[in-house]
């Protein structure tokens, strides 16, 4: 590239005197990333891709061990309470709906509604986690502890990992709620809600897979 071309592409030379405080990069589309996705959103997609392999490994481990003869305690397939888990699964799925409503509200700068839906989503998520705690307690009472047999270890690890993911999601939702209360979540920051939403929907989708493979399809 010749010098003249070089100068022509050097935007700083073109910035008029009065606009001197505009950083020279602002004249090039520096705000636009190469892919068009923001860094944060792309990073979240990448992270979720990685999470697929995490849950893939855990689900595979469970599927490997669910057909094994247990040496002690009940096999996990005998003590499922499908109606109960169906209800808590439904609650979790509905939280994806409220998450979308929260995003839609904040994009319209309707902060009151956005806060309501964020809190609702967090509450629905908490209901799911509470259901999981109840389920675990029941299973332990029925004789399946974490160390009782192979299936117990695999079941509690897989669903426990999912529960921790939901809990982290609830923490993020509550943080957003507090940020919004303190006026630190303007409509221009709607993407933050969207990114937390991506995580939340991912965790929901993983639960659909777990519920189908672990609970519904018999070993």
């Amino acid at each position, binding site marked *: *590239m*010749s*010098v003249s071309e*070089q*100068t022509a*592409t*050097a*935007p*700083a*030379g073109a910035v008029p005197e009065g606009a001197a*405080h*505009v*950083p*020279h*990069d*602002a004249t*090039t589309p*520096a*705000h636009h*990333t*190469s*892919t068009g*996705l923001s*860094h*944060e959103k*792309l*990073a979240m997609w*990448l*992270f979720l*891709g*990685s*999470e*697929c*392999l*995490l849950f*893939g*490994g*855990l689900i595979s*481990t469970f599927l*490997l*061990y669910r057909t*094994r*003869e*247990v*040496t002690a305690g009940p096999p996990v397939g005998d003590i499922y309470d499908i109606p109960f888990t169906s209800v808590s699964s439904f609650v979790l799925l509905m939280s994806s709906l409220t998450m979308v409503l929260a995003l839609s509200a904040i994009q319209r700068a309707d902060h009151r509604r956005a806060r309501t839906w964020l809190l609702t989503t967090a509450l629905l998520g908490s209901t799911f986690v509470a259901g999981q705690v109840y389920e675990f307690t029941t299973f332990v009472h029925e004789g399946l502890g*974490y*160390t009782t*047999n*192979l299936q*117990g*270890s*695999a079941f509690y*690890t897989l669903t426990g*990992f999912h529960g921790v993911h939901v809990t982290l999601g609830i923490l993020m939702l509550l*943080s957003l709620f507090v940020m919004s209360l303190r006026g*630190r*979540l*303007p409509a*221009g*920051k709607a993407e933050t809600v969207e990114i937390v939403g991506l995580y939340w929907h991912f965790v929901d989708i993983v639960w659909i897979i777990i519920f189908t493979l672990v609970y519904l399809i018999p070993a």
Partner: protein
Amino acid sequence: MALTEERPPLELTAGDEPVRNPLGAFSRPSSSYGWRSWLTTVDHKKIGILYGATAMAFFALGGLEALLLRVQLAQPEGQVLSPEVYNQMFTMHGTTMVFLVIMPMLAAFSNYLIPLMIGARDVAFPRLNALSYWVFLFGGLFLYSSFFLGGAPDNGWFNYAPNSGVAFSPGHGIDFWTLGLQITGIASLLGAVNLITTCLNMRAPGMTLLRMPVFVWMALVAQFLLLFAIPVITVALFLLMFDRLFGANFFNVEAGADPLLWQHLFWIFGHPEVYILVLPAFGIVSDVIPTFARKPLFGYPFMVFSGIAIGFMGWGVWAHHMFASGIGPVSVAAFSLSTMFIAVPTGVKIFNWIGTLWKGKLIFTTAMLFAVALVSQFTIGGLSGVMHSVAPHDTQQTDTYFIVAHFHYVLFGGSMFGIFAGIYYWWPKIFGHKLSERIGKAHFWTMFVGFNLTFGPMHIVGLQGMPRRTATYPEGMGWDLMNLLETIGSFLIAISFLMWVYNVVASRKNPHAGADPWDGRTLEWSISSPPPAYNFDVEPTVEHLDEWWHRKYGEDEHGRPVRREHFTYLSGVDEASRRGGGDDPDVDVSDIHLPSPSYWPIVLALGLPLIAYGLIYTYWLAALGGLVIIAGSFGLGLEPSVDPDAGHGDHGDHGPDDEGHDQELAEVGAAAGGDDDEEAS
């Protein structure tokens, strides 16, 4: 005009009273000089140097362990190490070299070079980058602390079940291994997300994917492999940890568990890991060889796509590590075939390097010597690798020194030679002066001879049946001479490493090398050495593959390259090294917003070893670590990436209550080109 000489590039003021002070714990660090700046830096170049220095320190430790192994094996019935200590040594040697040397060394190059090569001012998430480094460092230190706390892990770097269970490994060594690798895994995962986002999102205008230097491509593929491989070993490590700490049954054969589960999970991670270790080194030599062959890289698209092909096929070959474990003839046949196939894209690379060297005006600098050594030595390692795809042959060689020879030719002959090529090549860019070529060549030849003397004979004793991972061997097996030679070779390697250290020290007063000492081809050579904090005065607009070379050279009427009389360096080049045009006098570098240093990455990272120690010793410590992590996460998350109080030009646009402050999630993408006003609008 040397803009950077006259004022500090960032103009970070002392920041009298920070307006935003997340969690009220610290005032914002502001120094960009002195030792404290290294603790709080978010500059990808400083973090790259930290990664490199730490990795070389671990290289010395891992090398020391290797020397002890070789001293033990120098003669039959060696008495230097007890079998227990021998096991710890080979375990820590392998774990160190893979996780604490080659991986962070490649993270060092990726961190330092990717933004420079794609024309960016930093990585996508600079504070996350700092966090990755500190997490890695603390993970490594945690792992090494096991030596002082009852013994290091002793079950090999692959740590097969059920030998890793409490019943067979009652000490805490395996716990340190499990938890330490979890921690360094977090660092790798964060780094992968960060660097992939950087490569995909922060390319300068015109820097299309197929104009990226091959190093960037190979690093990108390796980061994708990390992104998907790390969670798999994370699962394996969690299962093992739950077995050992909480009495789960995943690898408890008594409860009906399948120990092969560990092997599958480990090698689904472990084989892509091999490519994680070697692909960036391929990238390094793919940039070094064209520079010193004075030719463009032969078959650039083939180089890129063969790298991508390796990245995909690397997922389909893991069970060739398990041919001897009884996985059945169908699996063995399938994985034999896929292993043979993966040699094809690797072979493509070898031939492309040869094609680049062919009829080039070769300049044998130290960097070039290491690069050419990679091509030859990796070919040997690759060939013995293809031999293992033949399952009957593999069954014969499993657990012998032939395997040890093979993977050292791949990882030392491949990765480490590539890393040293990169060190000699980019040293003047990073530190402003070249390493001594005289000492460098002595270093190279000593290392080359030592390497072949150490690992060449292992092929022979391996074929003669000498088992690996065994502390002693009996007399009269015909292995004595070869083992003695190997030990001598290993000391030659150690001497060559000391020569490198001496070179680093002796060369520190070498004259300034200038911005472009090798007449390089890629954008990092268009800016001063060492680069200013903001890298480029003006974001470059890219029009070619090998952009910098095209800016320096035109063509005469016969199509021969002719150096232009005028071309412009892209940032603060000092008078001495300026040969082309001048810097752009119209650019006010104080307008460039960079992310501010932060205490939070190191604080957050400290929580992880606390949790790890807590899980082993007392849960109270783990709870404390958890609190540190939660506090650190909120501190890091709520802190604005760019300190609103740091001065950067007199823009007067930083009112304390202005909505523009809400940029806690706005990382450098906004910071590199953005202004708070725009953020709010």
